[in-house]
């Protein structure tokens, strides 16, 4: 009954807000990741000062050292901004340099973390030692996993840049990676502040009334 015809024309992909679907998806994803870290951070905060045995934060955290690695991570966010800017200008050399720089600084941060975990283990703090160990390693571990995934993502983009796949037309790919990277950075700032600066001087169980 109905005549089979050609489709009227190649329609524009429908988009009500003007925000690219992938960008919108990623922003919503980041808000869910906020809650994920929020729940992990809440667990840490609830258990602050509740460890029954040591080592306690004051015994073991090296705030100056971690401040350095934090600074490196912050710088990597700057490198990420430069990488996006280079992509938007089709500056292929710049793209590669800044993507690599971001990834390398991320790797330095992870390197510091691995060193830190090793040191703590040597000083008797394992994930099963006490509540501090449990919450510290879990929270920073999941953050580190996020950073590591980001590092892999950056290197993949780096490699793809050799195949001409990282161009201003596809700058969204780099922008989304950038969003992720900045997010991970901001989460670290929160974690660093709470664990190291606020909780870093905790010693022994808090005596409550």
């Amino acid at each position, binding site marked *: 009954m*109905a005549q089979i*015809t050609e489709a009227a024309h*190649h329609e524009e992909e*429908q988009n009500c807000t003007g925000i690219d679907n992938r960008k919108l*998806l990623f922003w919503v994803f980041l808000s869910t990741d906020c809650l994920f870290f929020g729940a992990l951070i809440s667990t840490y905060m609830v258990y602050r000062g509740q460890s029954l045995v040591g080592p306690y934060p004051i015994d073991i955290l090296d705030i100056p050292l971690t401040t350095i690695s934090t600074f490196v991570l912050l710088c990597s966010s700057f490198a990420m901004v430069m990488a996006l800017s280079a992509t938007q200008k089709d500056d292929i050399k710049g793209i590669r340099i800044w993507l690599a720089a971001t990834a390398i600084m991320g790797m330095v941060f992870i390197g510091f973390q691995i060193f830190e975990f090793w040191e703590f283990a040597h000083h008797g703090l394992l994930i099963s030692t006490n509540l501090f160990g449990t919450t510290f390693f879990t929270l920073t571990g999941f953050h580190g996993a996020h950073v590591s995934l980001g590092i892999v993502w950056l290197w993949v983009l780096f490699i793809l840049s050799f195949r001409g796949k990282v161009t201003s037309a596809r700058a969204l790919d780099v922008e989304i990676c950038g969003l992720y990277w900045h997010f991970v950075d901001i989460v670290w700032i929160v974690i660093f502040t709470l664990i190291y600066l606020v909780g870093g001087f905790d010693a022994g169980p808090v005596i409550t009334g």
Partner: protein
Amino acid sequence: MATIATKQSEGNTFSVIWSWITTVDHKRIGILYFVTAFIMFLVAGIEAGIMRMQLATPGGNLVSPDVYNQMFTMHGTTMVFFAIMPLNAAFFNYIIPLAIGARDVAFPRLNAFSYWTFLASVLFMNFGFIVGSVPDGGWFAYAPLSEQPYSSNQGMEFWSIGLMLAAVSSAVAGLNFVVTIVNLRAPGMTLMRMPVSVWMFFVVQILLAFAIPVIAVGLIELTMDRLFGTLFFVTSAGGDPVLWQHLFWIFGHPEVYILILPPMGIISDVLPAFAKKPLFGYPFIVFSGIAIGLMGWAVWSHHMFTVGLGPIAVSVFTITTMLIAVPTGVKIFNWIGTLWGGSIEYKSAMLFAVGFIAMFIIGGLSGVSHAVAPSDYQQQDTYYIIAHLHYVLFGGAILGIFSGIYFWFPKVTGKLLSEKLGKLHFWITFVGLNLTFFPMHYLGMNGMPRRIYTYATEFGWDNLNALSSFGYIVLFVSMLIFVYNIIKSYKSGEEAGHDPWDAPGLEWTITSPPPVYNFSELPVVEGRDPYWIVKRRAVAEGKEIPGPQPLVDPSTVHLPDPSYWPIFTSVALLILAIGFMIEIPVWFVKYPISVVGGLLVFVGVLAWSNEPPTKEKDH
């Protein structure tokens, strides 16, 4: 006419199966969700049956205490995560793009991935039955009971890791549908012109996106305690069992709105169609849905009234919980307002919609009595709560889902369900559910706690339990009638045509079943109830009522291509999950199979991002 739409299913068996495995078509994915979820609904129904047969008499010993405890754990978990949520998902998948005038969802491959991961979670958790390690911690798995040494077999890992897979599936789908609803609405379809069903689905996607990470963290912490010796809920190290409860219920309360809002949305579409007048107070219904979604975050500790939170916390949650009755009541009144002054045709879908309202009034009122904390101190953990939850979930969600099935089955299959069988199904279900669950109010108030595998005759609970168990048999019969109706009508039902109900939504402007591309021309929407506008104008102008959109050659439509990377990635995720059940210490790695699974996930994601959604076509 049917040939174009079903071209996908021609060819030999293997190519048909392959086309389903690699499908990214939201309609097929919706059907996959529906079939899987309905099977799991029946499985959970059998689990309920075992319990009801055991409790039919005092001192029953049909099954051992341990098996009974596994039954209520699996019944609850399956019904919530593997039946109602995915039944809702079936509607999200099938209906949302059609109702908003889109060709598919924003991320079709991600959509397929959600389904296959869901299937993986079903298989993973139920695998426990095969190896004799069935979860038995109750569907909310309170710590420390869910920890070692109190739950010593692997059952609770099947539970927690299985749920993590389900969580990934739902969270990812939530993101997908948010983008779909925000960005892919047809021209002219503003948010306030969307069908209420889509509005409720939209609120639910946002709830999913925010609630699931919280339970994910809880599940991760529980699993880490069990597998890696962490101390999250280990009381001897200072761990706090109440933290688990907070994490669970901060997810768990929005979860119940995730379960009920979609069926509320469904009946909000069904009622106007059969009352032949628009939904009464569309803005109020939409805003009350949004209010429920928002307020639902502020009530979670009403599940914890007896845990010892202190009178301040209990007072606050009493007030917030009572207040959430207000938007719920508004919806009920507005639905009644839709019926009022209408010209109601009682097709099966409508019977279920009205039945929903009647049953939800009961469930909602018993909920209000729970909100009153001093009253809850008696009701908590008794059969009164079981009565409440089944009135809202069976009398509410399930009846609403049946309403949706009867409403949209003709669109999906092109056939009508038998009205005679449908009415029979409705009335038997209605009687059955009231026989099964109403007595439970009394049982609870008479002191019968929940989750007990038996009871003694001296308490006087015998007769009501027997009545309730009899009600189960009635429900069982009603399900048989329904399944028979589905199968028979699918095979030889009456042709439905594109618009059997004279309904207002965009999905009725296309053929039944829809062509693979949904709309040959994306519609332009003039207002709420867009098809009514078009049809009524034609009648007023004395013109012919416009029929379904004419079909076009599908190869001329820009559609996403099938892909095997979604199922590949889901399988990889399943391997990752399975890896945690098999300990093979290798160097410092305890679960090497999980490492392999993780690498495969990485491969899948990489290949997937590398694959273009559609091959370039010349047209």
